[in-house]
């Protein structure tokens, strides 16, 4: 388990490439940063694909023992199905956002380097590095460092516009992120004190239902929930995500919150013994259900398009938590379905939400505002962006065929299969509410523009195509036969059996 597997070197490259790229981009500056980012993110996608293929072919996780030191003394990188799937999702979204950013975040002619573009390209690489560290890390403190990397990268991207009104919401974001990190770190101190290691695989063998372990898990969970903005800790997210430029919002909503979720799964499915985890899971799922309903209802009432999309993130994060009581219910068949459903929800939401923020940004840029009530004419001026928004909306609602549908269907059947019908009711209700707010936007965009309105400037084709491509991926995930998602099950601990 802790030795280096064939293909383990790919994990080193997947982490070292964006780290080195970020350092070089920072040192060389200006337009070079953009070129490095595009190259590195392109290569990163290839690497993520290779890692997923290797894990799938081997049917077992890849691992790399760093510096030749075996855990618990040393650290290791590891890619199981979960890590490989999330790494590939992140690589594709990052690449798409980079392509989108070529127009929106270009260094203006005549200057060597400008604040926003340089920050965007450098932190795009920083984000890639942080996500790779968070997905591939096998040690809880190493993952803490990854979380902190993520905090800096995400916050700077959120502040990219430098609007005066933004500093308050970003400062709140920073406080939530930092409290989350400290609570997580507090938990690792207890775990090390109790078990003498922070290696996830070793903790899985050693941790019992003792007081230090349970308190550590509770503190770490609270910290991660603050970072994921799970209801009722969600208030910081919408202004922070909606206030960022579209490319940054897409990354924050699509990817950054998912990194904390992967850590949460590492904690709940790997480290914690099944009995206390199973007892605590309904509580988390209950918060998730509340997030789905409250987030969707608030989204339904938003007057601003970007805030609507941001509240939709609050709701969609809730779905992720529904998988926990289903995976831990003790029914192996339902557990496998719920596991796949949860990860598919994370991936399809990443693509769909990125598509939504990018297309919302294009619409807002062309109309000069983002008031939901005055979107008339948007459909005629930029059909591709509106179609992208609509397709992404289908996936969020869970209409077949789409990745979101498959994800929600799997969760729903797992809920019914384990006799927990109330989660199924939440899934259905959330889908209806999502339909409501997506319909509001689409219906508004498809009406004729007010006669007096200035003709909106149609955006460039490239960025519109990127948004559409992301939306298509989120739909296409629903067309892939379920059997080929076997990847995500690799390395998942099975209750009462060997991993």
């Amino acid at each position, binding site marked *: 388990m802790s030795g280096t597997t064939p293909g383990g070197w790919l994990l080193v490259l997947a982490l070292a490439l964006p780290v080195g790229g970020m350092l070089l981009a*920072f040192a060389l500056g200006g337009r070079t940063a953009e070129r490095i980012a595009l190259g590195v993110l392109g290569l990163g996608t290839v690497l993520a694909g290779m890692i997923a293929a290797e894990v799938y072919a081997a049917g077992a996780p890849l691992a790399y023992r760093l*510096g030749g030191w075996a855990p618990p003394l040393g650290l290791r990188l590891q890619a199981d199905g979960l890590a490989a799937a999330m790494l590939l999702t992140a690589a594709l979204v990052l690449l798409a956002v980079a392509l989108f950013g070529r127009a929106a975040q270009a260094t203006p002619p005549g200057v060597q380097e400008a604040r926003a573009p340089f920050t965007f390209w450098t*932190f795009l690489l920083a984000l890639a590095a942080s996500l790779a560290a968070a997905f591939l890390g096998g040690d809880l403190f190493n993952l803490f460092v990854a979380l902190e990397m993520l905090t800096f990268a995400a916050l700077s991207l959120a*502040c990219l516009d430098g609007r005066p009104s933004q500093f308050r919401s970003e400062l709140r974001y920073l406080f939530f992120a930092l409290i989350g990190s400290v609570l997580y770190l507090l938990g690792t101190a207890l775990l090390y*004190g109790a078990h003498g290691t922070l290696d996830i695989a070793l903790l899985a063998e050693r941790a019992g239902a003792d007081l230090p372990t349970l308190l550590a898990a509770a503190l770490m969970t609270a910290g991660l929930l603050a970072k994921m903005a799970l209801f009722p800790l969600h208030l910081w997210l919408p202004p922070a995500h909606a206030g960022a430029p579209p490319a940054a919002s897409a990354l924050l909503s699509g990817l950054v919150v998912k990194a904390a979720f992967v850590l949460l799964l590492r904690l709940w499915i790997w480290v914690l013994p099944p009995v206390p985890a199973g007892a605590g899971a309904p509580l988390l799922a209950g918060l998730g259900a509340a997030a789905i309903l409250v987030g969707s209802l608030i989204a339904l009432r938003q007057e601003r398009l970007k805030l609507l999309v941001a509240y939709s993130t609050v709701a969609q994060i809730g779905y992720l938590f529904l998988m926990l009581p289903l995976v831990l219910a003790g029914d192996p068949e339902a557990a496998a379905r719920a596991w796949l459903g949860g990860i598919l929800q994370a991936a399809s939401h990443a693509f769909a939400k990125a598509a939504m923020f990018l297309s919302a940004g294009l619409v807002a840029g062309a109309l000069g505002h983002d008031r939901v009530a005055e979107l008339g004419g948007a459909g005629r001026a930029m059909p591709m962006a509106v179609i992208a928004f609509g397709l992404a909306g289908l996936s969020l609602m869970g209409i077949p065929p789409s990745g979101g549908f498959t994800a929600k269907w799997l969760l729903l059947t797992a809920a019914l299969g384990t006799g927990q019908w109330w989660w199924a009711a939440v899934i259905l209700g959330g889908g209806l509410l999502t339909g409501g707010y997506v319909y509001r936007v689409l219906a508004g965009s498809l009406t004729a523009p007010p006669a007096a309105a200035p003709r909106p400037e149609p955006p460039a084709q490239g960025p519109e195509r990127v948004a559409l491509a992301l939306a298509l991926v989120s739909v296409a995930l629903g067309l892939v036969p379920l059997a080929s998602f076997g990847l995500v099950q690799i390395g998942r601990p099975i209750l009462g059996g060997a991993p």
Partner: protein
Amino acid sequence: MGGLVDWLLAALVLGAAAWTLAAPTGFAAVVGFVGFGLLVTLAWVRLGAVDVALTEAAIGAGATGVILLMAVVRLRGGAEEVSAATPGRAVMVAAGLLAGGVGLALALAVLALPDPAPGLAAAAMARRGELGLGNPVAAVLMGYRGLDTLLESVVLVFAVLAVWSMAPDRRWGGIPGPRFPRQEAGPLALLARLLLPIGLVIGIHVAWVGAEAPGGKFQGGTILAAMWVLAWVAGLVQPPAIASQAVRLALVAGPLAFLLAGFAGMALGEGFLAWPPGLAKPMILLVEAAMTLSVAAALALLVAGPPERAA
């Protein structure tokens, strides 16, 4: 039961913390925090962690204190806004109950930790020879958990750029921080002139001995950064423009050297972040030298803040 000294020290630490929270003015609170940091430094010595004590004094109390003191001078007013935003009694009680509950649970959990404590002291001590390092903490930082250290040095670069990126667009490429008038006479000028050469020597020494004795790049780098801040506040030096290539290279030198050394280990067949036997010590010292430079540059620039005027 601990000795009287430890009980007293623990009580003082808590007293300083309570003062930091309750102090009437922001300035008094920051002074309380610096005192807290110094008391915690003593606690680290009592806990047998001299490496941490050095870091706490340099970064926890020193550098953090400087940043907060500079901030408190610039954050004036707002008393009405603060009192309007201060939560009412009900929230206070709820927060007190929550915080107290967490504290109590934590204390109980610590008392429930297993005895003898599981840990890695023996393994860390036994294998440090393979790295040619006498100081086991250095062996953890550069060897066993090298990836943590590499990523953390990258975090410092993130942080510097994050701070810079908060500047207004038109200031990009400019000089960070406020301008301090040159002090020809007075205590600050004297302090800067007297302390500077001594501090430089101490900083380099602390970084250098880290391989064998308590010390290392973070502590040494912080002392170097502190010396630069002193010279800056005394008006003797100007921060460099953030567009300067030299500054950028100084910031990335450490993490880049670490990364390259990691790949060198891979190329030599030992694996990523492995130090080849025989070459371990000289390579580690080389990387540590680059890291000291980068840590010093990053901390100094974090204190200086975002660019505020044209180069």
